[in-house]
């Protein structure tokens, strides 16, 4: 057996670690640990000079293992693994001791405790690294097909980028048409481009691209596999329309007698029929039958659409179908839900007719919308003479969502401009802070100031129809503290628009679980690194783009769609990828064939071989959780890289100073034992 020669490298991370942990002392102490050949401290271990230090020592001192005591392994483990490899040391003979996130940053005013904790973590890592075994990563081929989930502007862009690069794409959309929220808008800020004019060509391209398979009205049910080789089960919901026969002529929906309020595309402000195409530019162009409002499905008779369909495309017996896709990468662009302002009862939405949500108002402004683009009250006729725009409804509020929804300020300015343009009405914005941070946004704000949009700084207290003073009768009264004056004011208006928050989709946590990624506390998908890897996730091969990652506007969503595509293209370009050999492995010679592990495995990766009377792990299916390892009664399953011995050694290591080691640490100023 080879003698252990471990190198320990204690990083200062500038002041981040050295400001709290006595790094020089820790390095000196580490040098005295059994098996340690060299211990150093250095200002920035992750710098190229720091890495070279490790490489040089590996080569000159013949190190058998490396411990880098620095930041979280989630930050720089790959960096130092590459460094080891460059110097000829197996990349899995590296262990990170997380003395920044887990020590210096959480014990900031307690040098002694932070230093002691750093020592124990390093001691654990040193003991562990001695038990590690060289491993070879699995090399897997990257399937060049990609699945994009969500056909809003972010998803469409990701799909087009990939398809234009020559790779197959499956674009999965839950609704009958792609387009997302952007397809509902009339104009986009600050350029006031026609939303449909810029989006429709992209939708068309996505729907007709030879490399894009569009799966509309479909939902992802299950995802298995790993980067390069995902297997995805998609359920395509029954449209009850045979798309092979349908020409999209529209006879069916014109004859359909069932009229219902359109909660989706028209945001509740307009009507549609039971068989419907969400909007004229829908891609694909085929209609769907909504079973819940269809008279035939509810009462058993009608079938007007079938009678009038010239091509016989209506199929009431059509069933959901299941499709299995094999893809190498996944881009999630599932978008957002609008906050329901009924949850803020003091704003009267749902009770006071002329209180509208921002999305309802977008539909109202749309030339193809329920009012043909006319700004009118709920009666459908009367033009308002005064309009209030209420910011931060459900945003920046601990009662609902603490975050800022990012786009509402600009959308409110856009509304102000369009209302003035179309009606000449007075528009008053009620804001806490106006946030116009992107290119040309502040200029747009200045423009609205000059267009005499009113701005009152104060979060609206309530919207009421209870008149109190002359001039208030028949109006909606917006009550607010004008914080710039310091006085309570009541502003009577005809119409109120609530700038409702963007919220994570109501099933975002389920979706995250399906794809094996994380959610923030608010429910938005968590990126791998907020600054440096904003569209990747902790799960290799799964990327995120658009508002599902956090509130953002159209340019940012488009950028993220393209960025996610670029990240996928990098992997496709590599052709193969190394994946972690963190897998279970059964020592078949000692396996008793008890089959306990077979049922425990969540991925059915363990199969029983009746001929040999032993179980075997399929490494392609195993994800390395270790559940079987812990359960094996004969302890013959090895959890590679997290072996029994390595964890037992690490336990001994972190407890080096207890009575098995040199005695407990004594402390004089420790927080939890301090008396009041």
């Amino acid at each position, binding site marked *: 057996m080879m003698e252990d020669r471990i190198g320990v490298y204690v990083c200062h991370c500038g002041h981040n670690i050295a400001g709290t942990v006595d790094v020089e002392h820790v390095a000196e102490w580490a040098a005295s640990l059994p098996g340690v050949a060299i211990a150093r401290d250095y200002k920035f271990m992750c710098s190229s000079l720091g890495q070279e230090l490790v490489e040089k020592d590996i080569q000159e001192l013949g190190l058998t293992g490396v411990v880098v005591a620095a930041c979280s392994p989630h930050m720089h483990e790959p960096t130092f693994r590459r460094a080891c490899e460059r110097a000829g040391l197996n990349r899995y003979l590296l262990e990170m001791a997380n003395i920044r996130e887990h020590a210096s940053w959480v014990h900031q005013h307690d040098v002694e405790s932070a230093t002691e904790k750093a020592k124990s973590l390093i001691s654990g890592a040193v003991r562990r690294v001695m038990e590690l075994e060289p491993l070879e990563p699995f090399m897997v081929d990257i399937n060049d097909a990609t699945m994009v989930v969500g056909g809003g502007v972010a998803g469409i862009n990701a799909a087009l980028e990939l398809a234009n690069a020559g790779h197959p794409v499956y674009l999965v959309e839950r609704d009958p048409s792609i387009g997302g929220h952007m397809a509902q808008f009339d104009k986009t800020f600050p350029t006031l481009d026609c939303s449909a004019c810029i989006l429709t060509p992209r939708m068309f391209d996505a729907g007709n691209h030879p490399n894009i398979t569009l799966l509309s009205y479909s939902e992802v049910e299950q995802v298995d596999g790993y980067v390069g080789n995902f297997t995805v089960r998609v359920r395509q919901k029954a449209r009850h329309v045979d798309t092979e026969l349908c020409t999209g002529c529209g006879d069916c929906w014109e004859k359909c007698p069932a009229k219902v309020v359109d909660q989706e595309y028209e945001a509740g402000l307009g009507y549609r029929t039971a068989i419907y195409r969400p909007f004229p530019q829908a891609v694909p162009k085929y209609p769907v039958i909504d079973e819940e409002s269809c008279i035939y499905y509810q009462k058993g008779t009608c079938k007007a659409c079938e009678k009038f369909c010239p091509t016989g495309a209506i199929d009431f017996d059509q069933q959901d179908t299941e499709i299995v896709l094999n893809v190498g990468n996944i881009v999630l662009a599932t978008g957002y839900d609008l906050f329901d302002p009924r949850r803020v009862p003091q704003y009267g939405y749902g009770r006071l007719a002329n209180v509208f949500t921002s999305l309802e108002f977008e539909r109202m402004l749309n030339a193809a919308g329920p009012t043909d683009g006319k700004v009118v009250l709920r009666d459908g006729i009367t033009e308002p003479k005064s309009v209030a725009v209420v910011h*931060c409804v459900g945003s920046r509020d601990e009662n609902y969502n603490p975050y800022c929804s990012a786009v509402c300020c600009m959308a409110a300015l856009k509304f102000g401009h369009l209302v003035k343009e179309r009606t000449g009405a007075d528009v008053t914005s009620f804001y806490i802070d106006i946030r116009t941070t992107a290119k040309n946004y502040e200029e747009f704000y200045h423009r609205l100031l000059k267009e005499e949009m009113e701005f009152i700084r104060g979060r609206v207290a309530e919207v009421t129809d209870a008149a109190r003073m002359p001039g208030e009768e028949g109006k909606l009264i917006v009550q607010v503290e004008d914080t710039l004056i310091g006085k309570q004011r009541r502003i009577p208006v005809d119409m109120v628009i609530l700038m409702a928050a963007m919220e994570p989709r109501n099933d975002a946590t389920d979706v995250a679980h399906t794809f094996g990624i994380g959610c923030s506390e608010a429910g938005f998908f968590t990126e791998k690194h907020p600054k440096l890897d904003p569209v990747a996730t902790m799960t290799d091969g799964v990327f995120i783009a658009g508002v599902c990652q956090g509130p953002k506007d159209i340019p940012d969503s488009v950028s993220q769609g393209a960025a996610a595509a670029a990240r996928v293209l990098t992997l496709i370009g590599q052709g193969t990828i190394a994946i972690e050999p963190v897998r279970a492995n059964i020592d078949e010679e000692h396996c008793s064939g008890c089959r306990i592990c077979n049922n425990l495995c969540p991925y059915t990766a363990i199969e029983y071989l009746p001929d040999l009377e032993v179980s075997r792990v399929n490494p392609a299916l195993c994800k390395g959780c270790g559940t079987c390892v812990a359960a094996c009664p004969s302890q013959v399953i090895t959890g590679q890289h997290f072996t029994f011995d390595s964890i037992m050694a690490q336990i001994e290591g972190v407890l080096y100073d207890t009575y098995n080691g040199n005695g407990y640490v004594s402390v004089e100023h420790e927080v939890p034992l301090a008396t009041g």
Partner: protein
Amino acid sequence: MEEVQTRKPFFDRVMASTPGGNTLLGCLQCGTCGGSCPSGPDMDATPRKLFAMARANMEEDVLLSNAPWYCVSCYYCTVRCPQEIPITDLMYTFKRMAIESGHYNAESHADFSQSFCGYIEHYGRSFEFGLATRYHLTHHPLQMVRKTGLGFQMIQKGRLNTAPDRIHDMPQLTAILTEAKRIATEDEL
């Protein structure tokens, strides 16, 4: 507890004297409180402004403000505050601090509270007739004339007892309140 010297002793004292008071650190100055307040128009400074002044450590200006005395305890501000600040309770804190420091200009309001509580300390129950006569005679003698009519009507309808209701175990209540007052002088919450 050790006295810590801080940059903003008044602001810190306000927070420390109110259960959950440290939420005040998150005040956005959005004005939901001032906008929601039923007596907002009568206040010389809205709650939001008082919080800004407290943060600027302007003790005298805060305690001299009439705003806390106009608080009707309707709790609209508290439930609507986007930062979950217990604003109504902070108004009580300002009132207490003003009375303690003898530093307020809304005299009648404070005196009403004190008269009311005086009766409770005597009888264990409130005594509206006594309160109305004593407090209004001393503070609003003119209003008293108008109120007399209402008073007679109330007595007629059996709604105003002319003799106070008294609890049995008054010594117990006195003992509790005496001890409570002693504890209150020890330190703030």
